C-alpha cells in the first residue's frame, strides 16, 4: 500500500508551486471558522446543567432481564440489539464493497512489501529475518486465538465481547497473511465467503427465531437470553475476524491464481 502512495507524493511536489498563494487564504479562513465553532461548542457544553438521565433510569430495572451481567454488552446486544445487527451488516458491507472493487493475489510480493525494502528477493521463504517471522507465527497465532476466545466469552460479565475477540482474530489473520501468503491463498474463496456471511447470518437467524417464541424481532426468550447472546457473540467474532483480514488484503482472491496458473 505504501509503495503506491509514494508515487502519489512524487506527483504532489510538482503541483505544490501553483496553489501556494490561494491555499493560504482558504486555510486560514477555514481554521478561523472551525475555531469559532469549537469555542461555541465548548461554551455550550460546559454551560449545560446535567439533566436527569431518562434512558439510564429506564434501563436500570431491565438489566436483570437482559441475560448478561455487563451493562455495555446488555445494551449492545439486547436492548439495542438492532443497532448491533446493522453494525455487523455495515462491516459485512465494507467487506462486500472491497471485494467488489478488485482482485488481489496475496502471494504477489509487490502487494505486501515495498520494492525499496526487498528489491532482490522475490521469494519470501529464505533464511534470515524471515526465520523470526516464521517462529513468531508458530507461537503467537494459537495464543491469539485462545485469548480471542476468552475475550468473546468474557463479554457476558465484563468488558469484552464479539468485536474485541474479532479484532484479535483479525490481527492473527493479518500476521498469517504476512508470513505465509502461499498457505493462505490456497483457501477456497467459497469458504471465505461463508466465513464472512456466518456472523451476520447467525444474528439474523436468532432474531427471526424470536418470532417463533412469540416475541418481537430480536426479543430473546426470557430464561435463556444469555445463551442466545453467547451464540451471537461467537458467530460474530469469527466473521469479524475474517472480514477484518479481507479488509487488510484489500480485494477478493484472484480466480486465475487459484486455477494453478502460477504466474505472479
Amino acid at each position, binding site marked *: *500500500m505504501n509503495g*503506491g*502512495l509514494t*508515487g*502519489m507524493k512524487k*506527483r*504532489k511536489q*510538482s503541483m505544490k508551486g501553483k*496553489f501556494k498563494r490561494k*491555499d493560504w487564504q*482558504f*486555510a486560514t479562513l*477555514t*481554521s478561523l471558522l*472551525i*475555531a469559532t*465553532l*469549537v469555542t461555541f*461548542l*465548548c461554551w455550550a*457544553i*460546559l454551560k449545560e446543567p*446535567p439533566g436527569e*438521565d431518562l*434512558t*439510564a433510569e429506564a*434501563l436500570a430495572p431491565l438489566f436483570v432481564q437482559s441475560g448478561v451481567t455487563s*451493562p*455495555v454488552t*446488555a*445494551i*449492545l446486544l439486547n436492548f*439495542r440489539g438492532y*443497532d*448491533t445487527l446493522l*453494525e*455487523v451488516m*455495515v*462491516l459485512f*458491507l*465494507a*467487506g462486500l*464493497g*472491497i471485494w467488489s*472493487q*478488485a482482485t488481489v493475489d496475496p502471494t504477489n510480493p509487490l502487494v505486501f512489501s515495498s520494492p525499496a525494502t526487498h528489491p532482490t528477493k522475490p521469494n519470501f521463504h529464505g533464511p534470515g529475518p524471515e526465520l523470526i517471522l516464521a517462529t513468531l507465527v508458530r507461537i503467537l497465532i494459537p495464543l491469539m486465538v485462545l485469548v480471542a476466545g476468552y475475550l468473546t466469552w468474557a463479554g457476558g460479565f465484563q468488558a469484552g465481547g464479539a*468485536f474485541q475477540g474479532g479484532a484479535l482474530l483479525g490481527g492473527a489473520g493479518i500476521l498469517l497473511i504476512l508470513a505465509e501468503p502461499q498457505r493462505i491463498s490456497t483457501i477456497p474463496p467459497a469458504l471465505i465467503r461463508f466465513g464472512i456471511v456466518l456472523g451476520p447470518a447467525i444474528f439474523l437467524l436468532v432474531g427471526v427465531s424470536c418470532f417463533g417464541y412469540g416475541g418481537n424481532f430480536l426479543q430473546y426468550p426470557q430464561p435463556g437470553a444469555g445463551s442466545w447472546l453467547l451464540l451471537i457473540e461467537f458467530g460474530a467474532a469469527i466473521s469479524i475476524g475474517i472480514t*477484518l483480514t479481507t*479488509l487488510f488484503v*484489500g*480485494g477478493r482472491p484472484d480466480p486465475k491464481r487459484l486455477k494453478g496458473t502460477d504466474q505472479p
Partner: protein
Amino acid sequence: MTITTGYIISALLLFGIGMNGLMTCSHQLRKILAVNLMASGVFLILIVTGFGTDGSAIDHVPHAMVLTGIVISVSTTALALTLACRIQQRLNRSADETAEGNDDD
C-alpha cells in the same frame, strides 16, 4: 467536573483539527486520516456523556453507541483506503506509461 471538562475540551479540539484537516489537505490519505480524527473526537465526547458528575459511569448507552461508531468508522475507512489505493495505482500506471513516453512529469 474538571475531569470531564478536560476530556470535552480535548475531544472538541480533536474534532476541530480533524475537520480542518479534512477541508484543507488536498491529499486523499490525509483526508481519510482527518476523518478518523474527527470520529475519535466524537467518540470521546460520547464516552464522557455517560459519566456522572463524580466521574463514575452511570449511563452505559453512550458506550454501546461508541462501540457501534467505532466499527462503522473502521469499515468506512477501510473502503476509503481501498478506493484511494486503486485510484493511486491507476494514476501510477498511467504516470509510468506517460513517463516512458515523455519524461517531463
